[in-house]
């Protein structure tokens, strides 16, 4: 099984630790994981801001010869999945890959902190890693299954207000939505807020910092690696 | 029938034992279980102008609106409880323009 790690460009720039942890997690399961050096950006920022791009085709060229492409970002995965490229069907978000392909569960069973999970829109309503409340389908949540511990969720599974280009065009409503999401989660007294999309988490953290909320926010790969790392 | 009555009441409708004075009375052909609505063929202004409307109906029901469509061969109106609105601060009020009260009376026998 040839596996490639996709390092989302914004993670490469703003939080490279997430890429490192994701790689460590995959290698923990004895997988042959390569990190293609030629990868750049999947094209999402251009598509979502209305500019034509051939970056998804470039992405396909880089990754098409792998069996699986694993990415710690559901928004990049859904960008590629919504195209009709060879790589479209091979790309998985990290938790989705652990759940669907490796069939690993309960990694964080003994995690000592109370985790709040932010179900991001791309994960929930584009990749269906869980059941969106809008649909009449049985409840499920792959990320919760992968974690396997008691999980706090927001009372509304609505958007946190990041929305990429939205956060740069509608700063105020973006802030209000993030503030509402934080309040919703903080009301349930978690120790840490996590999720599969660093973009949402970065947005929430920027608000928490500005408003002086005392809450730890980290990407799910960091929690999963904490649980898997035998040297700790 | 219980499910029909439950849904009729949810929509603000009543089950009447006899025809009270001062109510406009008309005939319904059947009821729809999934939403407590009744099919009235006779489309008269009194249905909407009257304060209180009662319909006499047989104990004839279909489960869903999809099944109801099979029985319709003329224009008319499905009615589900009294006229209502929630346009003032989402507060439900009966008697928006039409009847304030709406009831059904089952035909005797069968």
């Amino acid at each position, binding site marked *: 099984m040839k596996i490639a790690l996709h390092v989302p*460009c914004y993670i490469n*720039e*703003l939080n*490279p630790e997430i*890429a490192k942890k994701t790689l460590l997690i995959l290698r923990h399961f004895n997988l042959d994981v390569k*990190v293609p*050096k030629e*990868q*750049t*950006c999947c094209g999402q920022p251009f598509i*979502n*801001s209305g*500019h*034509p791009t051939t*970056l998804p085709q470039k992405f396909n060229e880089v990754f098409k010869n792998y069996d699986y492409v694993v990415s710690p970002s559901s928004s990049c995965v859904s960008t590629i999945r919504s195209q009709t490229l060879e790589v479209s069907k091979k790309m998985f978000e990290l938790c989705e890959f652990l759940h669907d392909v490796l069939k690993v569960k309960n990694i964080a069973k003994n995690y000592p902190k109370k985790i709040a999970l932010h179900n991001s*829109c791309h994960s929930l*309503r*584009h990749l269906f890693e869980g059941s*969106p*409340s*809008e*649909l*009449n389908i049985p409840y499920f949540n792959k990320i919760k299954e992968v974690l396997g511990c008691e999980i706090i969720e927001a009372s*509304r599974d*609505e*958007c946190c207000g990041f*929305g990429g*280009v*939205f956060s740069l*065009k509608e*700063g105020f*409503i973006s802030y*209000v939505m*993030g503030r509402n999401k934080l309040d919703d989660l903080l009301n349930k007294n978690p120790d840490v807020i996590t999720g599969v999309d660093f973009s949402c988490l*970065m947005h929430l*953290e920027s*608000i928490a910092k*500005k408003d002086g909320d005392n809450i730890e926010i980290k990407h799910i790969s960091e929690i999963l690696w904490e649980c898997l790392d035998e040297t700790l | 029938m219980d499910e029909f009555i439950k849904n009729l009441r*949810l929509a603000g409708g009543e089950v009447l034992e006899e025809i009270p004075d001062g109510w406009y009375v008309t005939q319904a052909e059947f009821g729809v279980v*999934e939403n407590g*609505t009744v099919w009235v063929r006779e489309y008269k*202004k009194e249905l*909407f102008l009257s304060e209180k409307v009662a319909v006499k109906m047989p104990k004839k029901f279909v489960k869903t609106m*999809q099944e109801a469509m099979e029985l*319709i061969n003329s*224009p008319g*109106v*499905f009615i*589900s409880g009294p006229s*209502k609105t929630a*346009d*003032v*601060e*989402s*507060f439900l*009020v009966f*008697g*928006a*323009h*039409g009847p304030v009260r709406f009831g059904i009376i089952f035909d005797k026998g069968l």
Partner: protein
Amino acid sequence: MKHYELAINFYKQKGPRHDKALWAIRQKRDKAIKEVDEWEELREKASKIKDEVINNLQDYVKEFIKNAKKEGIELFFAKDAKEHNEIVFDLLKEINAKKVVKSKSMLTEECGLNEFLEKRGIEVIDTDLGERIVQLRGEKPSHIVLPAIHTTKEEVAEILGESNTDPTYLTHKMRELLRNEFLSADAGISGANFLVADKGWAVVCTNEGNADLGAVLPKLHIISVGVEKIVPSMRDLGVFLRMLARNATGQKITTYTSIFGRKENGKRVIVLVDNGRFERLNTEFKETLKCIRCSACLTTCPVFRRSGGHAYRYVIPGPIGSLLAPLNNKEEYSDLPFACTLCNSCEMVCPVKIPFSKQLVKMREYVTKDDFAFKFIETSLHSPFAFKLFSKIIRLTPKSILKKALNEWSKYKEFPTIPPKRFIDG
């Protein structure tokens, strides 16, 4: 003013209350649709029926016209808003009408019928209580099913000159005032939710009974309706009647589902309106023609709930409005497809499965002009080397300049720290 500015003003005055009220309706809707086991199959069916209709629209229009005429309804076809308004005006002039009672119709809003008739000396009374409230306030509806959702009971009392703010009192007060208008009106105008092609009937769904009073009291009843509202048969209608009210407000069905054929005591006229719809069939936005105006996409939209409908400035606001408005006027509404986080909630609630996210992204492209800077960056990003160079430049740029460049972010949030080293670094 653009969406983001209007949104700030609205949110600061009324946002939290508006959001709460609409979220409550979203929850009622969730409960109602979860009582229908086959809900997701109904969506699939409804979507297929609508695909069938829009792919053969010309044929269905012909069939409907033929059968409606047979039924005894007078039929007109209007190619645009102007023609629609003129047809309606001529019909009213014929009977020397002075006053018209109108029940909610998004199409007459789209055509600007009220203004058109009022300029020609015909009084138009909106009779849906919510629409009457906004009409008296000199506003437009802010939501297509809950037109006055942005107002408070105090504001309603004020517009009626009342000091009592009890919703029941105010509703019955309006009922009294409007009853007189109904009894003295010369004609009634309404929209229609569905047209049944094989029967030639028009179907109107309301809770208040205002459309029915307008249809049954005056001698003339005009139905103004877009061509895309056709469904092939009664069997198909059944699918939509199970979904419309549940999805819109969480009711199992509206109080009245009126099926109109020939008018017993006068004349019924249907004005079928194109107004760009046939042209839209040949564009990548044709799927917007599947919309049944249930309004669930507005109610669920997290941006709409906080910004209010007026921030969209178009007759139809929210996600579906953000697709329709730019087709009407690209320059004026170019901000709307961006008043959206692509959260996809609209697509999840849509009863006819309009692929909202894809359509909104396409609409962003449609309204966006070619930009050299974007093109240059996009081309450069094909090369990891160039990417690294950009990354270096950003790291060397003083934070104050970055903050300024990303002002909408920095105004409300901390600026993220950029670590010195990347993971893949050439």
